[in-house]
């Protein structure tokens, strides 16, 4: 049986692909509950990461003619990523619609960068959502205090902030999918 091709780092020159428009997931005319998501990415030495490729994907609201559910952003000179998108809604859990698990609203986020041999994947949840207690992914994270590394806070109206640390004392929880 064939085996999946190995990952290699995206390196420092991936910007040859970069199109600023891709950070706006509403660019094909999507309307609804528009939010901005932003945050900084830092390494284990506290340095801002200014060369990362950050991608988000959300399965809700469902993909449509005007909403592709995917965005890509480059971290800027201050190590910050920013997306404009639609706020997601609750989703069925891994057991599918027939199962009994429901997931709290979330967005999948991937970090690709020089020094990362493969993608780092995590999720963005939204502070204050009542579904966090029973969310099947948040519930897996121990100790519980680390769950906060996945939960964005509304720092200005409709602007949600999630800072990410690749390594160190407050290291973000990354997911193996």
């Amino acid at each position, binding site marked *: 049986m064939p085996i*999946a091709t*190995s990952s290699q*780092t995206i390196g420092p020159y991936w910007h040859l692909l970069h199109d600023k428009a891709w950070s706006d997931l509403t660019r094909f005319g999507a309307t609804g509950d528009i939010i901005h998501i932003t945050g900084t990415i830092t390494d284990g030495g506290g340095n801002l990461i200014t060369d990362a490729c950050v991608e988000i994907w959300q*399965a809700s609201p469902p993909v449509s003619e005007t909403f592709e559910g995917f965005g890509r952003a480059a971290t800027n000179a201050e190590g910050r990523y920013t997306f404009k998108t639609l706020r997601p809604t609750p989703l069925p859990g891994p057991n599918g619609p027939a199962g009994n698990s429901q997931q709290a609203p979330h967005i999948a986020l991937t970090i690709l960068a020089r020094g990362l041999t493969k993608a780092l994947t995590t999720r963005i949840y939204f502070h204050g959502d009542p579904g966090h207690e029973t969310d099947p992914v948040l519930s897996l994270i121990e100790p519980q205090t680390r769950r906060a590394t996945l939960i964005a806070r509304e720092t200005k109206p409709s602007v949600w902030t999630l800072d990410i640390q690749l390594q160190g004392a407050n290291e973000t*929880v990354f997911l193996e999918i």
Partner: protein
Amino acid sequence: MSAPNLTPFRPEIAGTQPDYAANIYGSTALRAPRHAPVRIAQSITETTGPQFRQDRYPGNPDISKVPTGEAQGQRIVVEGHVRDEDGKPVPHTMIELWQANSCGRYHHEGDQHDAPLDQHFQGSGRVFTNAEGKYRYTTIKPGAYPWRNHHNAWRPNHIHYSLFGPGFATRLITQMYFEGDPLLKYDPIYNCIPDEAARTRLVASFELGLTEPEWALGYRFDIILRGRSATPFENDQTPAHAHAHAHDHGNH
């Protein structure tokens, strides 16, 4: 539209993917997480993923020239088959490509290597696989370039690849290398993949049959994306397991 396929993708096979922490690759030192990732059961968020329409993301399958002229260097065509771990073709999927010019310099402000830029080479392309999962593009062979990982470090000739496949879990960023490159054995990025056979699969083979007489050399580079597995993951998907897993690998 038909209902989305929610069957999870298979886990990676040990040794065939690099670890995050790799002593030989210096930039991983402050960027590789210390905690092992928490393994989760895949849901619709992971089993589905972005799909790119060719009318919105037009292909650019010949990057060996721009409207004002032809790039310097050895023209090549690269052809390959994108399949999954069951051998099934992955049709109509987007592949993004980027590379240095024939002298080993990227058209990128961050690249300060003392090698000439080429006004006729931008260095990025986009192709889609066809209904049979096959792709093909034309470019020039990229040059080797120095980097500062260690004394006298040079990257082998390579083309960067980005693929999406059918789900968020099939996202793949990789690099294609060239058969016979003497720099491969010294390259930390290539060698941070533990399994030798897996490394070798990143090396494109020269193929006379793909070579176009009087025009371009031909290389083949096939890609395999994760396959779906009917075997559910549920048996070991408990917080206790996730915790033990993280603990076992906590000192990476």
